[in-house]
């Protein structure tokens, strides 16, 4: 297809020039953080690093890492680098741990984030003649707001559907001739199933492309979605901590996602030692936000395991490409697009008077995640009546839903029945095949 770019000069900039630009921005950003974020300044001082030591991207490795636990420790304002009067927005992670991650944006931050999403939309062929149906959740979750903003920038007619209510989604899709769909891949697959069940053929809808992210999906799933919706399906990557979707996006080649390197500096590190690995190595993806004003994370460890590649891309973009994440370097699970940490489940169980003896079983039936939590029954909760025990299951499921934002099925099991291997209980059984 004919290649279009949203910001051609940057997207096709010679690599050396991009690197020079990154160096210049990094030096400024480190100074900004040093001056305005005592939390990070303290980390730098502990490492004996000052802004004077950072002369360009070759010095990046000298800076300390930030992790999710830093974000929790610094909640809510500890990593804020701008006065609140200059901030216009927050977004938050989908999970609701006791201390969730809250990211702040100035108007410029929102603008640059929306530019990133606009690049993703143009890369899949979007123009101001398109009708872009955004079926990501709107609200604290970054998916809806990010793609909504990008769609505006491109000039698409934007359908801010948010997620759910499939009947209405399909009605608008048909009546308003939506051409681009943005949502999670599992929801796209679900819409595909809905169409088939209702006798709507892919030829009956105008959809031509989809931008799907926020959860892991496979090539097999991609082919399924492409067939059921009659579209090309593209991946998009991002995380609340760095902005949201649009940190990286897929182009017509569909072989990985171009990282918006003018805004995000990517590294691959060894998750155990923290050592920076050479290009092409598999390791943990780390991002440094080069332009963010309000929430400028330096060397943020994403915990996504991934590979970067500078191989020339047929789309003409020179931006480095990241492969689909191949796993996690921590125990986070992504279930129905929501981040779930086993420790959150542990917290709920302790709060509800159970021992933290549990097992999470995740599977994918059709294209939907199933989420079961087996919990060892506590002696003081045991009852001789079925109604009392099912009420316990229900109330635990409710408490978990409040914490995680998604509904689990809770099964009470006898004490000591959760499989233990070598003395250590197996906490997570993930039967999904999410990585090719």
């Amino acid at each position, binding site marked *: 297809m004919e290649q279009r770019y949203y910001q051609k000069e940057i997207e096709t900039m010679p690599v050396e020039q991009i690197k020079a630009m990154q160096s210049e921005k990094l030096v400024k950003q480190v100074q900004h953080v040093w001056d305005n974020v005592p939390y990070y300044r303290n980390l730098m001082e502990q490492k004996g690093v000052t802004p004077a030591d950072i002369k360009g991207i070759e010095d990046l490795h000298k800076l300390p890492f930030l992790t999710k636990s830093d974000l929790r420790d610094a909640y809510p304002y500890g990593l804020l680098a701008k006065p609140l009067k200059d901030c216009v927005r927050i977004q938050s992670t989908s999970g609701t741990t006791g201390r969730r991650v809250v990211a702040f944006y100035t108007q410029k931050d929102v603008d640059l984030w929306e530019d990133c999403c606009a690049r993703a939309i143009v890369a899949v062929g979007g123009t101001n003649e398109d009708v872009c149906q955004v079926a990501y959740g709107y609200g604290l979750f970054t998916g809806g707001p990010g793609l909504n903003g990008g769609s505006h920038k491109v000039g698409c007619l934007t359908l801010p559907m948010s997620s759910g209510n499939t009947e209405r989604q399909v009605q608008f899709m048909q009546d308003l001739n939506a051409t681009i769909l943005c949502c999670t891949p599992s929801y796209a697959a679900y819409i595909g199933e809905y169409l088939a069940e209702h006798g709507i053929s892919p030829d009956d809808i105008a959809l031509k492309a989809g931008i799907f992210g926020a959860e892991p999906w496979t090539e097999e799933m991609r082919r399924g979605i492409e067939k059921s919706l009659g579209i090309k399906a593209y991946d998009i990557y991002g995380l609340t901590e760095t902005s949201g979707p649009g940190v990286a996006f897929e182009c017509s080649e569909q072989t990985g996602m171009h990282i918006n390197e003018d805004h995000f500096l990517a590294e691959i590190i060894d998750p155990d030692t923290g050592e920076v690995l050479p290009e092409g190595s598999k390791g943990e993806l780390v991002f440094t936000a080069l332009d963010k004003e309000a929430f400028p994370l330096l060397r943020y460890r994403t915990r996504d395991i991934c590979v970067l590649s500078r191989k020339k891309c047929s789309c003409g973009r020179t931006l480095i490409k990241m492969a689909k994440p191949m796993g996690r370097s921590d125990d986070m699970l992504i279930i129905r697009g929501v981040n779930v940490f086993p420790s959150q489940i542990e917290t709920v169980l302790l709060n509800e008077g159970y021992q933290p003896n549990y097992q999470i079983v995740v599977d994918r039936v059709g294209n939907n995640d199933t989420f079961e939590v087996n919990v060892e*029954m506590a*002696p003081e909760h*045991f*009852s*001789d*009546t*079925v*109604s009392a*025990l*099912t009420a316990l*299951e229900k109330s635990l499921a409710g408490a978990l839903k409040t914490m995680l934002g998604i509904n689990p099925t809770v*099964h*009470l*099991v*006898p*004490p*000591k*029945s959760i499989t233990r291997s070598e003395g250590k209980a197996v906490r997570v059984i993930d039967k999904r095949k999410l990585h090719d």
Partner: protein
Amino acid sequence: MTLTQLSVFVENKQGSLVNITRTLAENDVNIRALSIADTKDFGILRIIVNDTARAFDVLSAEGYLVKATEVLGVKIGDQPGKLSGALEVLDKNEIFLEYLYAFMARTEKHAYVVLRVEDNDKAAAALESAGFHLITDLDVNKL
């Protein structure tokens, strides 16, 4: 005037029940009555045994979750309509019945029913004043 029932939490898994009954048999515990309630996740085995304390100990030692509950044991004539009469007494007195199960005595021509109600004292008084005979743990061994 109550009977002690033991409830055991049972996993819905092959072999779960046989392990429990074998443990009881090996320890000379005789099951006089039993019922099982199950959902698709789990089951609750409820038993009346000849030696409640021993059964409780040996099952707990095997790692089972066991709970003792006081229930009512009502002697019912082995004739049509007798059970219905007992239940009508509960109904009339607005006593909520959680569950029930029945068993036969070996020696006499009588049936017995185990009743799990919300309020044992109220139910016992109502049943006795209606002429029903209630049994205790001591009686169980003589049946």
